């Protein structure tokens, strides 16, 4: 057998599926995107007793009918397994939250009906046992005819021993025994006969066709996963079946859920699958904690203090590593300059390439801290509480609580934030979130704020205030723009927002680190490539042309100086000169290039090693520095964001709309600041 056996990991959101995946694979995983969309595909390798397996972690779903973009990807894939047999995995591991077994079985029993060998992994069994309850594993296995049911605890790798053993046993001794169950009664089966026949012609087994048929008559969303050409035919026959079904059921709406939940309830009534040793019902830890954390006043207070703490930590703890990185890069540059012979190549290496790399790695500490904190909030279950607390406010600006997490991620980087919006079911809310997200001040703006503030303001209190003012300006503008967009966008809104608040869990350090590592890596690689390329281009533009003897000309006479001087009349109303103009041009690729551009400009221009801050404070005023910062709050200066908006919205239209409105805001904002400021006498 040359092909590695494949395993698919399926489960409800919050079932701990990703934790299981991370414990199984560790760093032996690859994150890629599904073709054409930015839904992440996690594929990993595991080795059990010497044998290699490929394992895919699919986004969490509640059923096989899609409600959002990432659910659609999984649902389409599952449909493929049914109609194209060779695409199906060898084994499905279905992860279930043991504490919420009947709800999780809603999906799990549908997976069983597909007929691919399945192992149930009852996750977080330790929590269930702590509350004096248990699940009769062998009874569950027998009654549902599952290939195997194991308990696991993804908090540590030891908790997965039963699962890995079961996987290895399955592949050593593959059973042909397909775990098929059927929940429909004969009358219902007869009513949907015409539809099941049609689906069987598409390659489905009898059981699969019944599963899909009952889903199709229950909700119209199910049709979305079928090919366009097939839909009208399926719909026509489904309508016939609906008429027949209405003779025996009061309504076909949500019929699948009603039948399935009744079936599960009977199963649990008849057999003691869930064992409860408690005499009285006790409130769970989550319920007790939620009394405070979701309290409208107390909870909001806690949420705001948490936000404050994260941002404080972001500045406090990144200072030392950032200085370290900075001095290391400085030392590296010096060493390279000493080793390499003087000349063009040395100049390119030190002032072009190393300068560019330095501009990328300097962000690693901050991105790591923010990604770790956000992931901690998400994995602990707290993020959903924040969404609950913020929903009332968010609904007023046409969004829902689900937009809070993507928007907060935007303070780190707009790219993961925009990617996180795919969990928002409603298209209009998703679009608004995407369009306002680049207004939240990402870490790339931070170096600009830092250099501008520290160069012109000495008092620490005033520095902090100015910092907060910039963040506030972006945030308030985002709120106003969201409100305006929600009024003017013609897309249809869906008011029935629903969200699960998962039980509180202790986040797993390994998962946090893997996530922070992969996000930071994607920043360094993706954004880094652009910044790196720009740095070299800039070096060329700033170092050429040379004079007749091959010596450097003053930067004013270089190519970049020429470009800067050409746009000077346009940027003059904002108080900017040609040097800042060069910085703005290079920033249109990525904001953080501004600082390295300015140092390159001064670095090449002047022989003596003056700090950038001293140079800036000599050349400009506080008013200009504020004008620059306001420009950076608003301007759409990130190629990567532009690219990701195009990718997520599937059209250039929204990416262009975003650039236009943000550039206008920036130009008008900065001009107002400078003109009003100068007329008041601040120069």
């Amino acid at each position, binding site marked *: 057998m040359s092909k590695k056996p494949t395993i698919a990991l399926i489960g409800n959101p919050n079932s701990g599926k990703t934790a299981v995946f991370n414990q199984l694979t560790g760093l032996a995983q690859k994150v890629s995107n599904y073709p054409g969309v930015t839904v992440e595909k996690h594929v990993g390798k595991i080795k059990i007793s010497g044998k290699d397996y490929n394992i895919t972690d699919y986004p969490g779903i509640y059923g096989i009918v899609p409600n959002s973009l990432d659910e659609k990807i999984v649902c389409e894939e599952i449909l493929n397994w049914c109609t194209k047999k060779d695409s199906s995995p060898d084994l499905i591991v279905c992860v279930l939250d043991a504490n919420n077994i009947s709800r999780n079985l809603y999906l799990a029993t549908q997976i069983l009906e597909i007929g691919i060998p399945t192992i149930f992994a009852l996750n977080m069994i330790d929590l269930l046992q702590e509350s004096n309850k248990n699940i009769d594993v062998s009874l569950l296995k027998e009654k549902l005819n599952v290939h195997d049911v194991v308990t696991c605890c993804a908090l540590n790798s030891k908790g997965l021993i039963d699962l890995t053993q079961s996987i290895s046993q399955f592949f050593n001794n593959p059973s042909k025994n397909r775990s098929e169950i059927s929940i429909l009664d004969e009358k219902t089966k007869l009513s949907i006969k015409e539809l099941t026949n049609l689906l069987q012609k598409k390659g489905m087994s009898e059981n699969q066709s019944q599963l899909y048929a009952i889903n199709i008559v229950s909700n119209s969303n199910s049709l979305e996963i079928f090919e366009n050409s097939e839909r009208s035919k399926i719909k026509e026959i489904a309508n016939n079946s609906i008429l027949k079904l209405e003779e025996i059921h009061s309504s076909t709406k949500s019929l699948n859920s009603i039948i399935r*939940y009744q079936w599960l309830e009977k199963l649990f009534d008849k057999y003691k699958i869930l064992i409860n040793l408690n005499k009285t019902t006790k409130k769970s830890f989550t319920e007790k904690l939620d009394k405070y954390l979701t309290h409208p006043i107390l909870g909001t207070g806690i949420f705001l203090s948490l936000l404050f703490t994260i941002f404080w930590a972001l500045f406090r703890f990144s200072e030392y590593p950032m200085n370290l990185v900075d001095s290391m890069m400085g030392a590296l540059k010096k060493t390279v300059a000493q080793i390499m012979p003087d000349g063009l190549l040395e100049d390119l290496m030190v002032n072009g390439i190393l300068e560019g790399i330095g501009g990328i790695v300097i962000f690693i500490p901050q991105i790591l801290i923010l990604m770790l904190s956000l992931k901690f909030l998400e994995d602990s279950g707290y993020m959903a509480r924040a969404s*609950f607390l913020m929903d009332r406010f968010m609904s007023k600006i046409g969004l829902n609580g689900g937009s809070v997490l993507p928007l907060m991620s935007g303070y780190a980087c707009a790219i993961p934030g925009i990617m996180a919006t795919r969990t928002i079911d409603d298209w209009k809310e998703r679009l608004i979130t995407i369009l306002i997200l680049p207004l939240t001040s990402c870490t790339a703006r931070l170096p600009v704020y830092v250099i501008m503030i520290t160069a012109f303001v000495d008092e620490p209190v005033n520095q902090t205030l100015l910092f907060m003012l910039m963040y506030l300006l972006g945030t308030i503008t985002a709120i106003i723009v969201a409100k305006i967009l929600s009024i003017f966008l013609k897309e249809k809104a869906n008011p029935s927002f*629903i969200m699960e608040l998962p039980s509180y869990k202790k986040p797993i350090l390994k998962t946090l680190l893997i996530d922070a590592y992969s996000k930071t890596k994607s920043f360094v690689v993706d954004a880094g490539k652009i910044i790196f390329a720009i740095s070299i281009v800039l070096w060329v533009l700033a170092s050429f042309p040379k004079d007749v003897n091959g010596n450097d000309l003053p930067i004013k006479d270089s190519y970049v100086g020429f470009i800067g001087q050409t746009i000077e009349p346009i940027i003059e109303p904002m108080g900017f000169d040609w040097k800042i103009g060069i910085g703005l041009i290079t920033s249109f690729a990525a904001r953080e290039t501004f600082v390295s551009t300015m140092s390159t400009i001064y670095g090449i221009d002047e022989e003596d090693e003056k700090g950038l801050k001293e140079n800036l404070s000599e050349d400009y005023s506080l008013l200009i520095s504020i004008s620059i910062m306001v420009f950076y709050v608003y301007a759409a200066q990130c190629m990567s964001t532009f690219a990701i908006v195009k990718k997520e919205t599937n059209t250039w239209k929204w990416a262009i709309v975003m650039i236009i409105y943000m550039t206008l805001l920036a130009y008008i904002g900065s001009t107002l600041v400078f003109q009003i400021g100068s007329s008041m006498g601040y120069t």
Partner: protein
Amino acid sequence: MKNKKKKIALSKLNTESIATIENISNDLKNKTRFSEMGIIPGKSLKLIQRYSIHGPICIKIMGSTIMIRKETADQIFVSEIYDE
């Protein structure tokens, strides 16, 4: 003994009260997601938190906590269960 009160909208239910879902308005959008979560007639739920009079509520149903908006809760009808 357990008794049932008359039918009310879920949004009118008091905090800490337990009720059974009687019916759900056909106007409710996104019904699939609600039914997947177990919000279907016959299931019982507990209202555990209310943000404000017009704000969202948290209910406990089938072992999980779910947040829904007031506008949605207006479309779900329940009958309160209380112990005598």
